[in-house]
Protein backbone atom coordinates (compact mmCIF):
# COMPACT_ATOMS: atom_id res chain seq x y z
CA UNK A 1 0.00 0.00 0.00
CA UNK A 2 1.32 3.45 -0.95
CA UNK A 3 1.18 6.36 1.48
CA UNK A 4 2.84 9.78 1.85
CA UNK A 5 5.17 10.02 4.83
CA UNK A 6 7.99 11.92 6.48
CA UNK A 7 11.17 10.57 8.01
CA UNK A 8 11.77 11.93 11.50
CA UNK A 9 14.90 11.73 13.63
CA UNK A 10 14.09 9.89 16.83
CA UNK A 11 15.81 11.46 19.78
CA UNK A 12 19.20 13.03 19.32
CA UNK A 13 22.55 12.36 17.67
CA UNK A 14 23.96 9.09 18.93
CA UNK A 15 27.51 7.81 19.09
CA UNK A 16 27.13 4.60 17.08
CA UNK A 17 23.81 4.60 15.26
CA UNK A 18 21.29 7.25 14.30
CA UNK A 19 17.64 6.36 14.78
CA UNK A 20 14.78 7.60 12.66
CA UNK A 21 11.12 6.74 12.34
CA UNK A 22 8.36 7.64 9.92
CA UNK A 23 5.10 9.49 10.35
CA UNK A 24 2.32 8.91 7.86
CA UNK A 25 0.61 12.03 6.51
CA UNK A 26 -2.72 10.89 7.93
CA UNK A 27 -1.37 10.08 11.37
CA UNK A 28 -0.75 12.07 14.55
CA UNK A 29 1.87 9.66 15.87
CA UNK A 30 5.08 8.30 14.45
CA UNK A 31 5.17 4.58 13.72
CA UNK A 32 7.74 4.07 16.50
CA UNK A 33 5.44 5.88 18.95
CA UNK A 34 2.59 3.57 17.97
CA UNK A 35 4.77 0.58 18.73
CA UNK A 36 5.83 1.97 22.10
CA UNK A 37 2.32 3.02 23.09
CA UNK A 38 0.66 -0.23 22.14
CA UNK A 39 -0.28 -1.78 25.51
CA UNK A 40 -0.05 -5.30 24.09
CA UNK A 41 3.59 -4.69 23.22
CA UNK A 42 4.34 -3.07 26.57
CA UNK A 43 3.01 -6.16 28.36
CA UNK A 44 5.34 -8.45 26.46
CA UNK A 45 8.30 -9.91 28.34
CA UNK A 46 10.45 -8.83 25.41
CA UNK A 47 9.52 -5.14 25.57
CA UNK A 48 12.18 -3.99 28.06
CA UNK A 49 14.72 -6.25 26.42
CA UNK A 50 14.15 -4.58 23.04
CA UNK A 51 14.54 -1.15 24.62
CA UNK A 52 17.85 -2.22 26.17
CA UNK A 53 19.04 -3.72 22.88
CA UNK A 54 18.21 -0.53 21.02
CA UNK A 55 20.01 1.53 23.65
CA UNK A 56 23.13 -0.61 23.19
CA UNK A 57 22.87 -0.35 19.40
CA UNK A 58 22.73 3.43 19.40
CA UNK A 59 25.43 4.05 21.98
CA UNK A 60 27.76 1.08 21.95
CA UNK A 61 27.64 -1.57 19.23
CA UNK A 62 26.00 -0.02 16.17
CA UNK A 63 23.33 -1.75 14.11
CA UNK A 64 25.27 -4.90 13.29
CA UNK A 65 23.40 -7.02 10.81
CA UNK A 66 23.48 -10.08 13.03
CA UNK A 67 21.44 -8.26 15.70
CA UNK A 68 18.47 -8.13 13.35
CA UNK A 69 16.24 -10.73 11.78
CA UNK A 70 15.80 -10.31 8.02
CA UNK A 71 12.15 -10.11 7.03
CA UNK A 72 11.01 -11.48 3.69
CA UNK A 73 12.93 -13.32 1.04
CA UNK A 74 14.00 -10.38 -1.13
CA UNK A 75 17.27 -8.52 -0.69
CA UNK A 76 15.61 -5.43 0.79
CA UNK A 77 16.67 -3.74 3.98
CA UNK A 78 13.60 -4.60 6.06
CA UNK A 79 14.56 -6.31 9.29
CA UNK A 80 13.04 -6.90 12.70
CA UNK A 81 14.57 -6.18 16.06
CA UNK A 82 13.66 -9.06 18.31
CA UNK A 83 14.70 -10.68 21.56
CA UNK A 84 15.15 -14.19 20.18
CA UNK A 85 12.87 -17.17 19.94
CA UNK A 86 12.14 -18.70 23.29
CA UNK A 87 11.25 -22.33 23.63
CA UNK A 88 9.58 -23.76 26.71
CA UNK A 89 9.27 -27.51 26.54
CA UNK A 90 7.64 -28.25 23.22
CA UNK A 91 6.17 -24.76 22.91
CA UNK A 92 7.64 -21.84 21.03
CA UNK A 93 6.61 -18.72 22.91
CA UNK A 94 5.35 -15.63 21.13
CA UNK A 95 7.97 -13.05 20.37
CA UNK A 96 7.88 -9.32 19.86
CA UNK A 97 8.99 -7.98 16.49
CA UNK A 98 9.86 -4.36 15.84
CA UNK A 99 10.11 -3.76 12.12
CA UNK A 100 12.74 -1.41 10.79
CA UNK A 101 14.81 -0.50 7.80
CA UNK A 102 18.47 -1.08 8.50
CA UNK A 103 20.10 1.31 6.07
CA UNK A 104 23.55 0.62 7.48
CA UNK A 105 25.38 -0.12 10.72
CA UNK A 106 24.99 3.57 11.52
CA UNK A 107 21.39 4.26 10.54
CA UNK A 108 18.08 2.55 11.32
CA UNK A 109 14.54 3.69 10.55
CA UNK A 110 12.07 2.24 13.03
CA UNK A 111 8.52 1.33 12.13
CA UNK A 112 5.72 -0.40 13.97
CA UNK A 113 5.47 -4.04 14.96
CA UNK A 114 3.87 -6.39 17.41
CA UNK A 115 3.76 -9.82 18.93
CA UNK A 116 4.09 -12.66 16.49
CA UNK A 117 1.48 -15.28 17.37
CA UNK A 118 1.63 -17.33 14.20
CA UNK A 119 4.29 -19.25 12.32
CA UNK A 120 4.33 -16.99 9.30
CA UNK A 121 3.97 -13.21 9.33
CA UNK A 122 1.79 -13.49 6.21
CA UNK A 123 -0.89 -15.19 8.34
CA UNK A 124 -1.13 -12.20 10.71
CA UNK A 125 -3.02 -9.32 9.10
CA UNK A 126 -1.65 -6.65 11.43
CA UNK A 127 1.98 -7.70 11.23
CA UNK A 128 1.73 -8.29 7.49
CA UNK A 129 0.54 -4.69 7.09
CA UNK A 130 3.28 -3.25 9.28
CA UNK A 131 5.98 -5.22 7.49
CA UNK A 132 4.46 -4.16 4.15
CA UNK A 133 4.60 -0.50 5.22
CA UNK A 134 8.33 -0.75 5.86
CA UNK A 135 8.86 -2.61 2.61
CA UNK A 136 7.19 0.29 0.78
CA UNK A 137 9.26 2.88 2.65
CA UNK A 138 12.38 0.87 1.81
CA UNK A 139 11.57 1.01 -1.92
CA UNK A 140 10.87 4.75 -1.78
CA UNK A 141 14.14 5.40 0.05
CA UNK A 142 16.01 3.31 -2.49
CA UNK A 143 14.61 5.52 -5.27
CA UNK A 144 15.48 8.71 -3.36
CA UNK A 145 19.02 7.47 -2.82
CA UNK A 146 19.38 6.53 -6.49
CA UNK A 147 18.28 10.06 -7.42
CA UNK A 148 20.73 11.44 -4.85
CA UNK A 149 17.86 13.23 -3.09
CA UNK A 150 18.63 11.38 0.12
CA UNK A 151 22.16 10.83 1.34
CA UNK A 152 23.46 9.09 4.43
CA UNK A 153 26.62 10.72 5.79
CA UNK A 154 29.47 8.83 7.42
CA UNK A 155 27.86 9.18 10.87
CA UNK A 156 24.54 7.75 9.70
CA UNK A 157 22.72 11.09 9.52
CA UNK A 158 20.22 11.40 6.67
CA UNK A 159 20.67 14.50 4.53
CA UNK A 160 18.17 15.80 2.01
CA UNK A 161 14.42 16.23 1.73
CA UNK A 162 12.84 13.80 4.21
CA UNK A 163 9.29 14.64 3.21
CA UNK A 164 7.84 12.13 0.77
CA UNK A 165 4.63 13.69 -0.52
CA UNK A 166 2.06 11.86 -2.64
CA UNK A 167 3.31 13.74 -5.70
CA UNK A 168 6.94 12.84 -5.07
CA UNK A 169 6.09 9.18 -4.54
CA UNK A 170 4.05 9.20 -7.76
CA UNK A 171 7.05 10.66 -9.58
CA UNK A 172 9.06 7.66 -8.43
CA UNK A 173 6.58 5.46 -10.29
CA UNK A 174 4.65 4.07 -7.31
Amino acid sequence: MNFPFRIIRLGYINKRCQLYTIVKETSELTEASKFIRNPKNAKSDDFDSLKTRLENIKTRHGARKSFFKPEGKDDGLVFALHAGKKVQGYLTLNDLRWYCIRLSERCVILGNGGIKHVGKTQEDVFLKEKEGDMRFVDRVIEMAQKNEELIEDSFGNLQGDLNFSAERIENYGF
Partner: protein
Amino acid sequence: MDFNKELNDQIWEEFSAPSTTDTYFIGKQMDIAAQIDTCLKEKGWTQKHLAELAGLKPSQLSKILSGNANPTLRTITNIEEALECDVIVCPEFYEESLVDNGWFRPGQRISLAANNYRKYTITDEEQIHVGNTWGTPMSINSQQYEKASSASHYKLTV
Protein backbone atom coordinates in the same frame (compact mmCIF):
# COMPACT_ATOMS: atom_id res chain seq x y z
CA MET B 1 0.94 17.53 9.88
CA ASP B 2 3.40 19.58 11.94
CA PHE B 3 5.68 17.29 13.79
CA ASN B 4 5.48 17.81 17.51
CA LYS B 5 9.07 17.73 18.78
CA GLU B 6 7.96 17.91 22.39
CA LEU B 7 5.80 14.86 21.91
CA ASN B 8 8.63 13.01 20.23
CA ASP B 9 10.97 13.86 23.09
CA GLN B 10 8.36 12.65 25.54
CA ILE B 11 7.92 9.38 23.66
CA TRP B 12 11.66 8.92 23.46
CA GLU B 13 11.87 9.49 27.19
CA GLU B 14 9.22 6.81 27.69
CA PHE B 15 11.23 4.54 25.48
CA SER B 16 14.53 5.05 27.27
CA ALA B 17 15.83 1.70 28.37
CA PRO B 18 14.85 0.91 31.94
CA SER B 19 17.42 -0.49 34.29
CA THR B 20 16.25 -4.03 34.89
CA THR B 21 17.92 -7.16 36.18
CA ASP B 22 18.62 -8.07 32.54
CA THR B 23 20.23 -4.78 31.47
CA TYR B 24 23.79 -5.78 32.32
CA PHE B 25 23.29 -9.30 31.01
CA ILE B 26 21.95 -8.08 27.66
CA GLY B 27 24.87 -5.67 27.40
CA LYS B 28 27.28 -8.59 27.84
CA GLN B 29 25.38 -10.73 25.33
CA MET B 30 25.73 -7.96 22.78
CA ASP B 31 29.37 -7.25 23.70
CA ILE B 32 30.26 -10.89 23.02
CA ALA B 33 28.26 -10.94 19.78
CA ALA B 34 29.85 -7.70 18.57
CA GLN B 35 33.38 -8.84 19.48
CA ILE B 36 32.97 -12.13 17.57
CA ASP B 37 31.45 -10.21 14.65
CA THR B 38 34.44 -7.83 14.58
CA CYS B 39 36.97 -10.68 14.65
CA LEU B 40 34.98 -12.54 11.98
CA LYS B 41 35.08 -9.49 9.70
CA GLU B 42 38.81 -9.05 10.28
CA LYS B 43 39.40 -12.68 9.28
CA GLY B 44 37.07 -12.33 6.30
CA TRP B 45 35.41 -15.64 7.17
CA THR B 46 31.82 -16.69 6.78
CA GLN B 47 29.77 -17.69 9.81
CA LYS B 48 29.60 -21.20 8.40
CA HIS B 49 33.39 -21.47 8.27
CA LEU B 50 33.78 -20.28 11.84
CA ALA B 51 31.04 -22.65 13.03
CA GLU B 52 32.89 -25.57 11.43
CA LEU B 53 36.22 -24.59 12.99
CA ALA B 54 34.68 -24.04 16.41
CA GLY B 55 32.66 -27.26 16.28
CA LEU B 56 29.31 -25.48 16.45
CA LYS B 57 26.11 -25.75 14.48
CA PRO B 58 25.67 -22.72 12.18
CA SER B 59 22.34 -21.98 13.89
CA GLN B 60 24.07 -21.97 17.29
CA LEU B 61 26.67 -19.45 16.10
CA SER B 62 23.98 -17.36 14.42
CA LYS B 63 22.09 -17.11 17.70
CA ILE B 64 25.24 -16.07 19.57
CA LEU B 65 25.90 -13.38 16.95
CA SER B 66 22.33 -12.12 17.30
CA GLY B 67 23.16 -11.14 20.89
CA ASN B 68 20.32 -13.28 22.21
CA ALA B 69 22.26 -16.34 23.37
CA ASN B 70 23.71 -17.53 26.65
CA PRO B 71 26.75 -19.50 25.42
CA THR B 72 28.87 -21.54 27.79
CA LEU B 73 32.46 -20.64 28.56
CA ARG B 74 33.51 -23.77 26.62
CA THR B 75 31.65 -22.54 23.54
CA ILE B 76 33.19 -19.08 23.77
CA THR B 77 36.72 -20.43 24.18
CA ASN B 78 36.17 -22.74 21.20
CA ILE B 79 35.28 -19.64 19.18
CA GLU B 80 38.29 -17.72 20.55
CA GLU B 81 40.64 -20.54 19.60
CA ALA B 82 39.15 -20.83 16.13
CA LEU B 83 39.38 -17.07 15.55
CA GLU B 84 42.71 -16.66 17.35
CA CYS B 85 41.08 -13.70 18.99
CA ASP B 86 40.09 -12.87 22.56
CA VAL B 87 36.35 -12.47 23.05
CA ILE B 88 36.14 -12.25 26.82
CA VAL B 89 39.00 -11.17 29.03
CA CYS B 90 39.72 -10.78 32.74
CA PRO B 91 41.34 -7.34 32.82
CA GLU B 92 43.92 -7.87 35.56
CA PHE B 93 45.44 -11.03 34.14
CA TYR B 94 44.82 -10.14 30.52
CA GLU B 95 46.88 -6.96 30.69
CA GLU B 96 49.66 -8.73 32.53
CA SER B 97 49.81 -11.49 29.93
CA LEU B 98 49.87 -8.94 27.12
CA VAL B 99 52.74 -7.01 28.67
CA ASP B 100 54.63 -10.27 29.34
CA ASN B 101 54.29 -11.06 25.66
CA GLY B 102 55.63 -7.72 24.47
CA TRP B 103 52.38 -5.80 23.95
CA PHE B 104 52.13 -2.23 25.12
CA ARG B 105 49.51 0.42 25.60
CA PRO B 106 49.56 3.91 24.13
CA GLY B 107 51.63 6.13 26.37
CA GLN B 108 53.12 3.21 28.29
CA ARG B 109 56.86 3.15 28.96
CA ILE B 110 58.43 -0.11 28.01
CA SER B 111 61.93 -1.45 27.86
CA LEU B 112 63.04 -2.49 24.41
CA ALA B 113 66.60 -3.16 25.44
CA ALA B 114 68.69 -2.66 28.53
CA ASN B 115 68.64 0.95 29.68
CA ASN B 116 66.56 2.01 26.71
CA TYR B 117 63.12 3.15 27.80
CA ARG B 118 60.79 4.48 25.19
CA LYS B 119 57.38 6.04 25.37
CA TYR B 120 54.90 5.08 22.69
CA THR B 121 51.99 7.27 21.77
CA ILE B 122 49.30 6.16 19.37
CA THR B 123 48.22 9.25 17.46
CA ASP B 124 45.73 7.59 15.15
CA GLU B 125 44.83 4.22 13.71
CA GLU B 126 47.63 4.27 11.18
CA GLN B 127 50.69 5.55 12.94
CA ILE B 128 52.52 5.22 16.22
CA HIS B 129 54.92 7.93 17.28
CA VAL B 130 57.79 6.67 19.30
CA GLY B 131 59.97 8.86 21.43
CA ASN B 132 62.65 7.91 23.91
CA THR B 133 62.95 9.41 27.35
CA TRP B 134 65.07 12.21 25.94
CA GLY B 135 62.33 13.19 23.55
CA THR B 136 63.92 12.00 20.34
CA PRO B 137 60.96 11.29 18.08
CA MET B 138 60.61 8.65 15.41
CA SER B 139 57.61 7.26 13.58
CA ILE B 140 56.64 3.77 12.61
CA ASN B 141 53.89 2.90 10.19
CA SER B 142 51.10 0.38 10.37
CA GLN B 143 53.26 -2.26 8.71
CA GLN B 144 55.56 -2.15 11.68
CA TYR B 145 53.12 -2.95 14.46
CA GLU B 146 50.14 -5.14 15.08
CA LYS B 147 47.12 -4.45 17.20
CA ALA B 148 45.83 -6.83 19.87
CA SER B 149 42.24 -7.99 19.52
CA SER B 150 41.46 -5.94 22.60
CA ALA B 151 42.38 -2.94 20.40
CA SER B 152 44.04 -1.28 23.35
CA HIS B 153 47.47 -2.86 23.07
CA TYR B 154 50.07 -2.83 20.32
CA LYS B 155 53.21 -4.76 19.50
CA LEU B 156 56.13 -3.82 17.30
CA THR B 157 56.75 -6.24 14.48
CA VAL B 158 60.15 -4.83 13.52
